[in-house]
């Protein structure tokens, strides 16, 4: 790949990320409460997916590497699930 093709490709993805950032800021001023959080996290997750799949080259990665990456996020989901399960099942303070 030539240098100008590389720069063009990186610039396109960067502009996409910046565009999503702008939408995120705008949405925070229009939406209230729960929907605001859901939209913000959905945009952040999309941005993260772009970075991980494209910029971190997960599309080209060997299976073992993809497994290591997936393991990190699976353990994160376990952490969050168990934390919220703990909080949700606590009896109210007397």
């Amino acid at each position, binding site marked *: 790949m030539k240098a100008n093709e*590389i720069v063009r490709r990186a610039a396109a993805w960067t502009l996409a990320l910046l565009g999503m950032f702008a939408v995120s800021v705008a949405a*925070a001023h229009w939406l209230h409460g729960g929907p605001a959080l859901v939209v913000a996290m959905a945009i952040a997750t999309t941005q993260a997916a772009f970075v991980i799949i494209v*910029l*971190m080259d997960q599309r080209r990665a060997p299976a073992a590497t993809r497994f*290591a990456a997936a393991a*990190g996020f699976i*353990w*994160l989901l376990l952490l969050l699930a168990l934390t919220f399960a703990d909080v949700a099942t606590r009896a109210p303070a007397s």
Partner: protein
Amino acid sequence: MSTGALHEPFEDLGRQRDAAEFGMWVFLASEVVFFGAMFAGYAVYRHQRPEGFAVAGQHVDLVLGSINTILLLTSSGTMSVAAWSARANLRQPTMIALAATLLLGLGFLGVKALEYQQDLHEHLWPGDPMFPSDLPGARSFFAFYWLMTSVHAIHLSIGIAAVSITLVRMRLRRAAWHRSGLLHALALYWHLVDVIWIFLFPLLYLVGRSA
């Protein structure tokens, strides 16, 4: 002054590159869980004290946070240019892109320092007697703000140091930069620091903005 790309115990550069990438991802997976614990704590407290978090979130400087987000997202772009140029065996574009990444990272830290100074001036420290809100959860929000942004800044500083060292070694022609997977591993770390900020920004800077 060896710039040999192949190191023991690897038989060929392909396996060495795969090992570098795999090893970095195992480390990044641990970083995801490390930051995840802080995000989990934030989520619990925000769920329990939404009003305090919303009121406290309005005191965070959205302009400076936005500038930092733009700097960091752009730095991911320049770091990608560096990694892809290295793969294509383009030395000068790799070095220029690394230098740009370094400058953007330093810019982030500079803006962060300015923001911290401003925050302290406004008494936005959880233990400050002149903290601007007595709502339950407001001080907790700022406890998470200071903890999570400072830990992120430390990680970014490590990335900046690694980029600087790589740039100097490339300049001195002492780095096996285009065959060993070095730039790719460096880029993986940098992008993860960006991913962390991608989630930090809405949770710390976009709370309570519609109030």
